[in-house]
């Protein structure tokens, strides 16, 4: 049975890679510059923030929940940390990143507490906090904007810098993905997230601390979004209260396109990150192919629907196969 599940997962990630290859190929045929070093680097850089957010979102979705507030958490953290950097330009970069993480984790803890302790569906909670966090961001910003000139050079250097040709942002994202993948795959607390999402009642009976795990998943999602907020400030240099608006849709789409079941219990962070890469590549390809940007949102929505439907079909097939097999064994 695990072999079968493993197979279904592999096929999914293979499918994304195939789609990715196809998009790149078609676009490169129309404009070879699409596969130049600089263009690929830009693509990875554009993907990194969304891919980062998919890591936390994956952990939440695995538990059969959803975190729609990530874009707002990113915005709030971006404005707060950028503001701190303006007042304290001597602040070291790691401390700045840590502040972002703490701000995000606090937001995540509020979401998680409302979901796990208040027993309110995560959709409603995070839809509410999406607006609450964004509103706090606006109230704090008061219409002001922080510009690159106000930010310390060290921060901007981190946002634009590279190590061995790879942008720092991409490296940070890869490290976070690796840590999360290791945790989900190799640690009991990680495996338990899958158990909770597969069957919440069974997870309770199996003695899993469901509330604590769900709370942790939300804190992780918030922390990652907070980290992404600081990185946003470093990357773009300008921050106003609208940073990251609407990002939640891209993140949820990437996660679902990347093969994380919206019903919980199955999926990987690498798949989700590949989903983010595919979505970003498609939107870049649209620009290169001179298709109006207006198509982007419709395509994102259609892809999301297709991924959910595909997910359901695979799950039904799998269930049917498993039933046939178990019947074969008992007969």
């Amino acid at each position, binding site marked *: 049975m695990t072999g079968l599940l493993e197979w279904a997962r592999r096929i999914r990630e293979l499918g994304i890679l195939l789609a990715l290859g196809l998009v790149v190929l078609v676009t490169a045929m129309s404009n070879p510059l699409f596969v130049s070093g600089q263009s690929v680097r830009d693509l990875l850089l554009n993907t990194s923030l969304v891919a980062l957010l998919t890591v936390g979102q994956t952990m939440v979705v695995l538990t059969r929940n*959803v975190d729609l507030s990530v874009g707002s958490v990113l915005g709030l953290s971006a404005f707060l940390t950028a503001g701190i950097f303006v007042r304290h330009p001597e602040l070291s970069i790691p401390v700045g990143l840590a502040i972002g993480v703490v701000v995000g984790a606090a937001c995540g803890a509020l979401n998680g507490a409302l979901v796990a302790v208040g027993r309110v569906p995560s959709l409603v909670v995070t839809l509410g906090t999406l607006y609450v966090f964004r509103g706090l961001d606006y109230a704090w910003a008061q219409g002001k904007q922080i510009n690159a000139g106000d930010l310390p050079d060290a921060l901007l250097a981190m946002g634009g810098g590279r190590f061995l040709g790879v942008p720092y942002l991409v490296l940070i994202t890869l490290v976070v993905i690796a840590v999360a993948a290791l945790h989900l795959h190799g640690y009991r607390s990680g495996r338990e997230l899958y158990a909770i999402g597969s069957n919440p009642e069974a997870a309770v009976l199996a003695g899993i601390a469901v509330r604590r795990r769900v709370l942790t998943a939300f804190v992780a999602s918030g922390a990652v979004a907070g980290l992404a907020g600081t990185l946003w400030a470093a990357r773009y240099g300008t921050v106003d209260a609208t940073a990251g608006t609407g990002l939640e849709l891209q993140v949820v789409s990437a996660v*679902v396109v990347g093969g994380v079941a919206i019903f919980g219990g199955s999926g990987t962070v690498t798949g989700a990150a590949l989903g983010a890469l595919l979505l970003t590549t498609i939107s870049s390809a649209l620009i290169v192919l001179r298709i109006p940007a207006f198509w*982007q949102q419709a395509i994102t929505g259609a892809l999301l629907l297709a991924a959910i439907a595909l997910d359901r079909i695979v799950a039904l097939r799998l269930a049917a196969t498993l039933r046939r097999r178990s019947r074969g064994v008992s007969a």
Partner: protein
Amino acid sequence: MKAKDFLRWETALFVLLVLIGVVGAARTGGGFLAGQNLFYLGLDIGEIAIMALPLTLVIVAAEIDLSVASVLGLSSALIGALWNAGWALETILPLVLLVGAVCGAFNGVLVTRMGLPSLAVTIGTLALYRGLALIVLGDHAVADFPATYTRFGTTPLPGTPIPYPIALFGVLAVVFGLLLHATAFGRAVFALGANEEAARFSGIRVKRNKEILFVLSGVLSALAGIVYTFRFSSARADNGTGLELAVVAAVLLGGVSIFGGRGTIGGVILAVLVLGALRNVLILADTSTEVLTVVTGLLLLASVLAPAIIQGILNRFKRPIEGAPS
């Protein structure tokens, strides 16, 4: 006990509404209660109120539709694009309502025939329908509509102080109230939300009924799009962006359980008025729109948390029944 609960919730909403009215009138030196202000308040809640009616039924049936504001936007964009193309409004408006029905049916079919969660489906169509709106109209605004159509955004119903959209809402509210509380269909909707399995065994056509609910939601969202377009005399693809929060907030604040099976149209109407009045008072008090958003978000959270907290407190005073599952 259920009836008593509803009564309490609706009474609480009514008291809240009166309180907002009194405080509002006191803080604004009576400006809140001025006819002109109440007229604008009525105009302002029109679309939210219209979309909240079918969404109430959808949520009572334990589903959700987050695509309502995008259908509103698509409907607005279609009006603009077709008007630009030289079509007559008499042709455009029925067509737009039909497109709304198709959008709703698409949601419904994905939910019922493919067994997908409505939350995921309507997050997808929230993006898809808004995207289609952008494809149809791009980022232009169409504003040259005839005064016959745009007038109702500035004038009341002849001989009364009531804005046209509110009159429309009043009629629809009666229709939906009767539909939910006085017909077999309404009872089926409650049954669906309370226990879908049991509803199926008792012969209720689950899929068919849910599809009807999503179609109703689509049609009335398109209608809200028409109202919105002519009220501002501006057809835009981004009209009503984010409005789904206000609609969901109104329904949940109205005492409809997000888990399905419980809720009343009356409660939702009161909640729409509470949210509208609160918004209006805050605007009169020169509060920024950002604070309004925070308040809406907080009210949404409070309205879903309140039942859980009340239940928790009640449980504390209740002796556990032996052998009952906890």
